[in-house]
């Protein structure tokens, strides 16, 4: 499902995790984690399919993959390119997971020294830094979007004094704004409006040969792979920076350190390997601050943070005391997800690619219905839908004005926690 979400241009890993969150509400925590991490890993990898076959990245994370991947397809080596991305993504996710296992206890030990002052500053840091780094235009736009999320988080009855904040005498707002309609509205509706308003069309995917793991090429480029994995983990662990930046930085570094930089941009396998390793390694990196400090590493990780909170798990320094085995469980699930992704990628890619034939004008209205059902299903509350639509439209205008939506959502997620820590 994650691969399909990533492969369809217009659908992102963030939206996939947000939509799936509602369906996992009735599941046990472990089952929900398997579904959500599987979606996350699969969607980041799946974005490479259209990047390689039709030169349109399925997700922003795969934008750099298209540079060399599509040229390999044009040379008739599309199957080889898909094999390379599949193996590189598997290695990237696994290396990211290993770093997560090694780094998490050290950071948690340090984070346990934090008192409420530091925790409050940490939540504010998470909101501000994500605004700073995810803003594609002026930095202050990120700083506006984050506090805007904090304002939305203030809606509802005060948790300590039960005084109504910004409820406008509407009893439905007394409980505050639920995270899921904000997530789905802020990511789903702008995407639908943007794609259909601009009438973005897709070209037919080019034919490709057999998909093989390409271990020989992988071994020859092992230096690029390890370096890209480290870049991915490093960038992923910086709050707010996503897989797309990891892909580009890693591509640039691979090109600069290569003996044949002139081959990059002309169908060089090392270009595909470096970007795909980095963007998948970013997942493990993004989970480091999420699990140890309770702040997100990337936009899909922010959705994961919301999902974990819905399941009664509050990631942060205390998690190692409340659930000592949680980090290890996450790592094991991450490894299984990457293994499943590799197996699916090698054996089922040909079937998934057929989905690229579905026109955007057909599947986006269906995504709209899923957004509606997703927002409603969580609390069985129609008012969530009434909130989702205006939030989605406002988010669309903010996106058009290049305000980062991820930091707004982070503000909504971390707002109540920041408020409680600040006054508690």
């Amino acid at each position, binding site marked *: 499902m994650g691969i399909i979400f990533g492969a369809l241009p217009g659908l992102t890993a963030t939206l996939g995790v947000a939509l799936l969150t509602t369906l996992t509400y009735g599941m046990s925590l472990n089952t929900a984690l398997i579904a959500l991490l599987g979606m996350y890993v699969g969607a980041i990898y799946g974005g490479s399919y259209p990047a390689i076959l039709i030169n349109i990245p399925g997700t922003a994370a795969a934008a750099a993959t298209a540079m060399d991947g599509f040229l390999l397809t044009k040379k008739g080596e599309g199957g080889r390119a898909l094999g390379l991305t599949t193996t590189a993504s598997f290695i990237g996710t696994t290396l990211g997971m290993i770093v997560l296992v090694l780094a998490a206890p050290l950071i948690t030990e340090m984070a346990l020294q934090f008192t409420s002052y530091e925790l409050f500053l940490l939540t504010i840091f998470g909101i501000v830094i994500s605004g700073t780094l995810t803003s594609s235009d002026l930095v202050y736009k990120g700083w506006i979007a984050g506090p805007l999320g904090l304002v939305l988080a203030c809606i509802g009855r005060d948790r300590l004094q039960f005084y109504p904040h910004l409820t406008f005498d509407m009893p439905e707002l007394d409980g505050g704004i639920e995270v899921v309609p904000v997530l789905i509205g802020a990511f789903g509706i702008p995407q*639908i409006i943007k794609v259909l*308003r601009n*009438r973005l069309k897709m070209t037919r995917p080019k034919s490709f040969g057999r998909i093989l793991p390409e271990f020989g090429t992988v071994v020859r480029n092992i230096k690029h792979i390890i370096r890209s994995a480290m870049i991915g983990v490093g960038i992923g662990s910086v709050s707010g920076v996503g897989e797309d930046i990891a892909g580009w930085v890693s591509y640039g570094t691979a090109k600069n350190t290569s003996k044949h930089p002139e081959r990059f941009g002309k169908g060089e396998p090392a270009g595909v390997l470096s970007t795909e390793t980095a963007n998948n390694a970013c997942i493990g990196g993004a989970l480091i601050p999420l699990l140890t400090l309770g702040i997100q590493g990337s936009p899909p990780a922010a959705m994961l943070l919301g999902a974990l909170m819905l399941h009664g798990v509050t990631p942060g320094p205390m998690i190692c005391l409340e659930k000592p085995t949680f980090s290890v469980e996450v790592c094991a699930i991450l490894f299984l997800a990457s293994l499943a992704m590799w197996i699916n990628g090698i054996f089922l890619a040909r079937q998934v690619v057929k989905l690229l034939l579905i026109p955007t004008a057909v599947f986006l209205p269906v995504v709209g219905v899923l957004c509606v059902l997703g927002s409603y*299903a969580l609390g069985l509350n129609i008012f969530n839908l*009434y909130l989702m639509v205006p939030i989605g439209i406002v988010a669309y205008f903010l996106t058009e004005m290049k305000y980062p939506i991820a930091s707004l959502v982070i503000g909504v997620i971390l707002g109540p926690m920041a408020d409680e820590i600040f006054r508690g």
Partner: protein
Amino acid sequence: MANAITYHGWPGVLRDNQHHTPWFNEYNQRFIAIVLLIRTYVYAFIPHVDFLIATALFLFAFISAFYLERHEPLIISTLVFLVTDIVVLLAGNGVTQNIVDLFTTAVLAVLIFVTLRFCRNHDLETRRFQTTLLVALLVPLLLCPIFRFGLLVPLPSESFYIDAMEQLRYLLKARF
């Protein structure tokens, strides 16, 4: 406009306006259509109309507006939704829900008929119309049982069609 006033005065503003594309261009029409379709679906249909038929109408109008090459379905779907929105909101609380459901079904039938008239002399458009119809009917027929009976999520509004589906389920259960 601010620059035009600063640097060129009112003649500049008037000249500038002549060069601008009209506000109600196709790009903005699509935006208005998307917002109106989603707005009507969420605020008018979901609370007042059976979820199955509401979703079928929403999907048919939405897909035909953007999937078909011709521009007319976009205008027609938007106008039909606008009128249905007003009627459902006005009548929604006053009449029984089954009447609202039947009215929505009639609107869907009319919309299908009108869209078919625009497509019938064109092979590609006819094929696209068939795809639109198939997706619009199949998706709610799959989603409703999955959520209602599989995930045990009560749908936002259940009346004529969901009740019929429930009856069918009990009938099948009794038989097998």
